[in-house]
């Protein structure tokens, strides 16, 4: 979007922060309905990112399909869960959890270092003469 500089950055940071919080909420909340609505918040944040990158169609398609259809399906599936059977004991770490944490941290940091260093402008899939609209 053609927003003034600081507002664009504030929206990106806000969206990223809410996305992270929503992601943590999906994983860590014990009530599965809250978890499913938190997933809806994550998908809405992704749609906000698409708006900020000038991809209006993809952003609206994201809202329509992911939030409007897929999230609704997930909530329907979660409704089948019997409420009396939720686990109320404390979440304790297992060895598999620690290994997964290491792998995810490695992937995160390798992505954080490779993405800014790649020259994305060098990747051109279509040439200019293939445009349909003249």
């Amino acid at each position, binding site marked *: *979007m053609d*927003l003034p500089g600081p*507002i664009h950055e504030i929206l990106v940071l806000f969206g990223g922060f809410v996305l992270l919080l929503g992601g943590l909420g999906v994983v860590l909340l014990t009530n599965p309905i809250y978890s499913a609505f938190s997933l809806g918040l994550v998908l809405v944040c992704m749609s906000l990112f698409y708006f900020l990158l000038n991809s209006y*169609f993809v952003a609206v*398609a994201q809202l*329509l*399909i992911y939030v*409007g*259809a*897929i999230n*609704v*399906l997930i909530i*329907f*599936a979660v*409704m*089948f*869960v*019997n*409420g*009396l059977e939720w686990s109320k004991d404390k979440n304790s770490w297992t060895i598999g959890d620690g290994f997964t944490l290491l792998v995810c941290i490695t992937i995160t940091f390798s992505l954080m270092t490779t993405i800014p260093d790649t020259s994305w402008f060098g990747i051109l899939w279509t040439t200019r003469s293939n445009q*349909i*609209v003249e």
Partner: protein
Amino acid sequence: MFLLHEYDIFWTFLIIASLIPILVFWISGLLAPVSKGPEKLSSYESGYYMFALVFVVFDVDTVFLYPWAMSFDVLGLSVFIEAFIFVLILVVGLVYAWRKGALEWS
């Protein structure tokens, strides 16, 4: 309001459309009696699961047809035939859902 002044009416609409459900749920939460019971924690099936499934399929279908519809006048005959084949493939899915009884109301 603060940004994108040509979208003022849209922001107003969005704010009012967001405030009404929030207001409704809040007032209902204040005024309704609270009753706890084991029935409230049991699983709930509203019967609309099959409709949500069919909706996902045809929503994705529709989203793929929107760009084709917008640029229909500059695309040629071959693209029309391709879109027709795409819709035919989805009609096969529709016939499957129909014969499986997913479109029954009861």
